[in-house]
């Protein structure tokens, strides 16, 4: 009888916790129904990949989707924002940077077209499309330097970094390059760009509970050069 009680209680506890934890992605999918989407299925499929890999969290995505659903604007541009994030997930890229910039843009009431495509006016504004290109170019740069991501829980071997650590480095380097471009920096000042990347990575790796390990920062800084970073920026700005 005691075993039966323990069994029933255990099942009840596990079932209730699992049920609550599993509702979060559904909340995002429900919120998506508030936006007129032509590519609904593709977006949901990509989000599922993101949730499963830990690249996207429902509590991070839900506010953005709710904001898009509640705000005014062209439905195609709203969908465009979601599609860039979805395509980044399908292209095996981290999306924190994109989600954050989309949210910031909406909070600042920046026109959806600018959030999506950027603008070249008095000061250059990078849209999500350009930011995704920079993420991709940085990821490819790391690949070309022999730094790869290893998915799953396997320990890092040589320059195969666990996916979370690899994503974090790609995100931070790309973010530095985006900041540099939006600040009006010249792509030809490679040493300045490298200095910015170095400052960001070293500062983050020196924090009490570092977002990434000092050895990861050292690995990247040892393998990339000022010229590499110039090439990445030129590739995106061309």
């Amino acid at each position, binding site marked *: 009888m005691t075993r039966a*009680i323990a069994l029933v*209680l255990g099942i009840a506890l596990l079932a209730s916790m699992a049920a609550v934890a599993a509702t979060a992605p559904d909340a995002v999918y429900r919120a998506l129904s508030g936006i007129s989407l032509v590519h609904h299925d593709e977006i949901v499929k990509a989000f599922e990949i993101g949730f499963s890999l830990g690249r996207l969290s429902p509590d991070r995505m839900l506010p953005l989707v709710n904001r898009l659903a509640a705000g005014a604007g062209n439905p195609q541009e709203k969908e465009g924002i979601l599609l860039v994030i979805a395509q980044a997930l399908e292209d095996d890229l981290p999306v924190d940077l994109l989600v954050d910039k989309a949210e910031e843009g909406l909070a600042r009431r920046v026109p959806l077209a600018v959030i999506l495509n950027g603008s070249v006016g008095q000061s250059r504004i990078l849209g999500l499309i350009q930011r995704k290109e920079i993420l991709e170019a940085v990821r490819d740069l790391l690949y070309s330097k022999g730094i790869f991501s290893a998915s799953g829980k396997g320990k890092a071997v040589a320059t195969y970094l666990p996916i979370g650590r690899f994503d974090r480095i790609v995100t931070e380097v790309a973010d530095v390059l985006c900041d540099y471009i939006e600040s009006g920096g010249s792509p030809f000042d490679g040493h300045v760009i490298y200095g910015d990347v170095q400052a960001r990575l070293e500062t983050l790796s020196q924090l009490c509970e570092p977002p990434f390990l000092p050895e990861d920062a050292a690995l990247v800084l040892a393998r990339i050069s000022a010229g590499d970073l110039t090439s990445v920026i030129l590739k995106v700005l061309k």
Partner: protein
Amino acid sequence: MKPEDDLDRLLRDTLNQEVEQHAYLLEGLEDRIRSELAGRLPRAGLGDLFRRLLAPTRGARIAQLAVVGATAVVFLVLGVFLAEKVLPTGGGSLRHAAVAAAGTTDEDVLFVMPAPDAKSVAVVGNFNNWSPTPLSDPDGDGIWTARIHLSPGRYEYAFVVDGHWWGQDPLADDYVRSFGQYNSVRYVGRAGEGA
């Protein structure tokens, strides 16, 4: 007698000899097979447990079931509560939850904005999904403040003063351009620094 008949007899004799020599092995064979099969039979499983639990035998059994059911409901509610409070929904949250549980590296970060004539001041940043967290000025001296609990990391933010964004906090570690405006940057968790 044909040679084939000799061969048959030889084979029969050999087989008989073999059987006689190993006859002792057959003793108790049936019992051994029975006990072996009994060992392989499934034990009373979950179904049996529930069948026994649900068997309409005595009133006492019904009372026991009621106790189990009530306790299960309590655990169900407890599970929902724990899941909402404890379970993370993303990779970043997991780290933050772990850090918060350790209680060693998070900081209460102080945000200060002097705005003597302002009616409302808030801070928005990537720590609150760019949704306003209000600052307060209880003594009315025009210095608006808020303390926000943050994990170590790099944060971009701006103040919103009466609806206008202000991204150049004098206390910031750095500044970046974003959407043509400034954002302040704060690093939380530098060794030897606090809020």
